[in-house]
């Protein structure tokens, strides 16, 4: 018998601290798979966000760095400018990237830094206990929107992929999800594509991943996945928003 699925080498064989059914674990695996397949484990450097994925350096089996809340794109810029031969990716949550870190992601994107950003959008602040994120959906109840998010009070969910796709410096943007195997594979392809473009010096790649936070959505993991398909995709449509490699 041959192994048809095993843990990627780039993912340490340890238990995560994530809640059961959390999407972060799946996304970690996909990144590790992509790194293995591209054969870049020995020259990749990851940047962990401040958010539930803060301990990513304990899970990835390659060099990983912490970054202050929201500043991963600036940290990535510093790294890539100093060592263009390294492959740099930032892993960020929606609070991290779209709230406190909005200026940093926009400017790194606009400068067209040759880095890859993996954006895990779970529509909530997981790590701090389920507060509203910039991507929280209208009507969604969170710790800080006990009556549900109101457009009039808190504005609409921010569509980061659409926002970033506009900048000339950005070369690849895709929004994916991990609700079922097909989507998981599509996500892996997008992650791989972004990294490959970086390897080839083609510039800034961005993959947004709609991901469940069963804990702060107050839903069973399976139901949370359904929720993404039934509600979240409506607000954050899946698909490739930009790819300079695509023939038009």
């Amino acid at each position: 018998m041959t192994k048809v699925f095993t843990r990627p080498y780039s993912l340490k064989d340890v238990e995560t601290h994530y809640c059961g059914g959390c999407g972060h674990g799946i996304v970690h695996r996909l990144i590790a798979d992509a790194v293995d397949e591209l054969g870049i484990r020995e020259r990749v450097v990851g940047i962990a966000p401040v958010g539930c994925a803060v301990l990513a350096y304990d899970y990835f089996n390659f060099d990983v760095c912490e970054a202050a809340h929201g500043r991963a794109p600036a940290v990535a810029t510093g790294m890539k400018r100093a060592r263009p031969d390294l492959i740099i990716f930032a892993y960020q949550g929606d609070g991290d990237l779209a709230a406190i870190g909005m200026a940093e992601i926009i400017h790194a994107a606009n400068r067209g830094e040759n880095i890859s950003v993996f954006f895990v959008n779970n529509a909530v602040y997981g790590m701090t206990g389920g507060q509203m994120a910039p991507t929280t959906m209208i009507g969604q109840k969170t710790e800080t929107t006990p009556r549900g998010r109101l457009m009039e009070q808190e504005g609409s969910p921010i569509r980061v992929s659409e926002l970033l796709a506009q900048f000339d410096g950005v070369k690849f943007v895709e929004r994916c999800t991990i609700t079922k195997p097909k989507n998981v594979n599509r996500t892996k392809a997008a992650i791989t594509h972004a990294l490959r473009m970086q390897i080839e010096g083609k510039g800034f790649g961005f993959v947004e991943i709609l991901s469940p936070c069963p804990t702060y959505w107050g839903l069973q993991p399976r139901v949370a996945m359904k929720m993404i398909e039934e509600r979240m995709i409506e607000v954050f449509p899946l698909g490739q928003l930009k790819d300079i490699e695509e023939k038009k």
Partner: protein
Amino acid sequence: MAEERIIIAGFGGQGIMFMGKLLCYAGMMEDRHVTYMPSYGAEVRGGTAYCNVIISSEEIPSPVVSDPTAAIIMNMPSLAKFEAAVVKKGLMVVNSSLVTRAAKRKDIELIPVPATSIADRLGNTRVANMVALGGFLAKRAVVDIATVTAAIQEILPASRSHLIEVNRQAIAEGKIYVEAHSSAAIWSKLTRGFGFA
């Protein structure tokens, strides 16, 4: 009882903080001095969670419990973490459904309660905390069970009021379980490891 200093510990998600707040609230309702301090400290998701509760007839200088007179231990890592801290002759209530190794201390009163199994039986694994609390109150009547029931009503949000009954029932089951198992019988089981559930 001048002062009861209690540590409650388990996994995040086992309702550890709720137990602590409940005890504390009941204490206040009975006009005791109370403090409650969660360990929001070292761990994030998935780790061990614990809290400190002090119920006293006098003012409480510090909310930090370093020498608990009682501990409620809901899972294995918590046993390792707090076993040594309990004062001599102190009480340790253990969720024997999940704690499958015997405690080492012989100088404390050890009360195993198969809280998770009993809760499963009641149809809601999540009330294991209340089963353990019932067991604890059977041994240390720091507050009246009636007060605790009243306190549940106060602190459960309206949206969850349908859960009051199963919580009440879980406390009762825990108390009954402990009262039914004489300490002699328990000690003998202990040496064989927790064989329940």
